[in-house]
């Protein structure tokens, strides 16, 4: 009887209250017993903090040149030493976080959305258009992402927007391929037939049934792709093809420290290490997300 009363009371509660009290979604739960995942999450949080409030972490003026303090080794007066102009390497890393994450996230969103749309449409509609587009995608997939981005950035003026665009385009083929496979699978599932036999329109089936059922792998792929995009961005900057002025940039920092690497190793090493750790952290979290969202594939 008390259980019944409880249920009745539960139903009387406003929906917001019920929403707050609902059982937690698996992906959001703190992952017990996985220190690596916690570590990765904390590290990512730190970098996000850098990107959001760089001044809090590294002072207001990271680009101030101070020749007297040039090429100081780490842990003397500066945490990670200074570069050849006397700028704190740590401050440069902190200030480089925002453009790096911007490029990583925005290019993934852009390219991921475009690639997903191409893939889902191709997989669901099929036909000769699908065949044609997918062969084109196959050609693009044969090229490494960095090379693809390089082709496009070389044709465009070197601004942050264009860099995002170029890396975004390099992201498209991978998404298109994965999402096409997913859409093909969803299309042949019984609930699509069930929607057809009640007379639901093709377009409505695409939007309401096929697309939502393709989202989980897209989200996982997107997370993993952010790391790749950051590496491509750093690589482009390292090659001197990044946004030319104004923004601090990890790739450019690696490049500028290259001439000193035999003696003043810290200038190139720390940004390189940071990019590496960031990509690893994102991968770990992406894998964890996949485990949570696609239990069957794990």
């Amino acid at each position, binding site marked *: 009887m008390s259980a019944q009363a409880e249920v009745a009371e539960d*139903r009387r509660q406003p929906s917001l209250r019920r929403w707050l009290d609902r059982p937690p979604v698996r992906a959001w739960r703190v992952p017990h017993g996985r220190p690596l995942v916690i570590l990765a999450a904390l590290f990512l949080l730190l970098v996000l903090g850098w990107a959001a409030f760089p001044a809090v972490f590294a002072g207001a003026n990271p680009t101030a040149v101070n020749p007297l303090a040039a090429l100081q080794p780490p842990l003397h007066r500066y945490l990670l030493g200074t570069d050849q102009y006397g700028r704190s390497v740590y401050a440069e890393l902190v200030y480089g976080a925002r453009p790096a994450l911007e490029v990583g996230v925005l290019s993934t969103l852009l390219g991921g959305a475009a690639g997903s749309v191409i893939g889902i449409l191709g997989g669901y509609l099929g036909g000769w258009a699908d065949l044609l587009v997918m062969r084109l995608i196959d050609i693009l997939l044969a090229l490494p992402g960095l090379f693809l981005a390089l082709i496009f950035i070389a044709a465009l003026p070197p601004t942050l927007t264009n860099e995002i665009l170029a890396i975004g385009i390099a992201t498209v083929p991978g998404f298109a391929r994965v999402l096409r496979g997913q859409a093909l699978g969803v299309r042949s*599932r*019984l*609930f699509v*037939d*069930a*929607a*057809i*036999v*009640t*007379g*639901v*329109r093709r377009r*409505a089936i695409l939007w*309401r*049934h096929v697309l*939502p*059922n393709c*989202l989980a792998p897209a989200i996982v792929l997107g997370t993993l792709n952010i790391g790749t995009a950051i590496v491509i961005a750093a690589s482009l900057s390292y090659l001197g093809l990044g946004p030319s002025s104004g923004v601090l940039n990890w790739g450019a920092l690696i490049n500028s420290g290259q001439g000193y690497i035999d003696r003043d190793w810290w200038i190139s090493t720390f940004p390189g290490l940071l990019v590496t750790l960031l990509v690893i952290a994102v991968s770990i979290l992406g894998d964890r997300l996949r485990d949570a969202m696609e239990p069957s594939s794990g």
Partner: protein
Amino acid sequence: MADDRAAPSLLSVEHLSVSYRTSSRSGGEHVDLVRDVSFGVGRGEIVCLVGESGSGKTLTGRAILGLLRRNARMRVSGSVWLDGRDLAALPERELRQVRGTGVSMIFQDPVAALDPVIRVGHQVAEAMTRRDGRRGSRRAVVAQVADLLRQVGITDTEQRMQQFPHEISGGMCQRILIAIALAGNPSLLVADEPTTALDVTIQAQVLDLLASLCRERGLSVLLITHDMGVAARMADRVLVMYAGAIVEQAPAGDFFAHPAHPYGLGLIRAVPRIDTGPADRLSAIPGSVPEARSRPAGCPFHPRCPLRADVCEQEEPELLPLGAQHAACHRSAEVLGAARSLWDSEASVG
């Protein structure tokens, strides 16, 4: 029931054939999966399509809804008249308007037939409002959905609507699917093994629901099943399918009393009965349904048939009338006679 059958059929399937072209690697030949199937379903009638797995029952059901056309290798011919319109000849756009409103379908695996990422209430609402976008206010739609769910025997509708398919039982999923199928108020429901995935008590509930919907709404049902118990319980008329063709067609009472085809007889005798002595062994039909690619010459049933004669190996029998029944068997008169005398002797003993 007799006057029902005299009325013009709601559904009339004529010379329906489905063939499949195998991939060029495995020969590229045409394999006939459904062969020249013709039957009708009257208004308010429950017709059971029975047969073993692989006999072409499900394909027939899907062909009626036009679900097979999406595959280039599949060839469907014949006509499917529903209310004076040939569904097999309709363009996709018009067919879509008939689906849901004229004819709808429920499936064997109710959990898989619901979209896992959408709340069930929305899925019912989608079927209900599909014709001209959202009709009426949100509240009105919710009320309509709740009303429909109550009609299929769901009590706590408000809570159910908010749930996802994985949160509810298979039997509940099938009720939801029935609600979805009925949302457009169709006159015919094709039910493809609707209770096979459910346990026996739930099975009975779902069947009762279908029967009562039939009575109350005048709904016609084409019930596809391999379960003779289900057929005996539900059917007004029985169609027996074997190797892609209909081999017997009869009013349910006649069929279960005295089938006119040895296959029908075998199917009935393969069902355990509570009223026969323990000494009786359950008789199974030896062998299995021949694969569509290697169907024997003559009557497709002859290798498994206890009554086969020489003619059975050479000539495929046609579906011919025999009293109220139709059977495709060279020796159907004998089968019928034997079944009748068996029935009489049992009746006189009982």
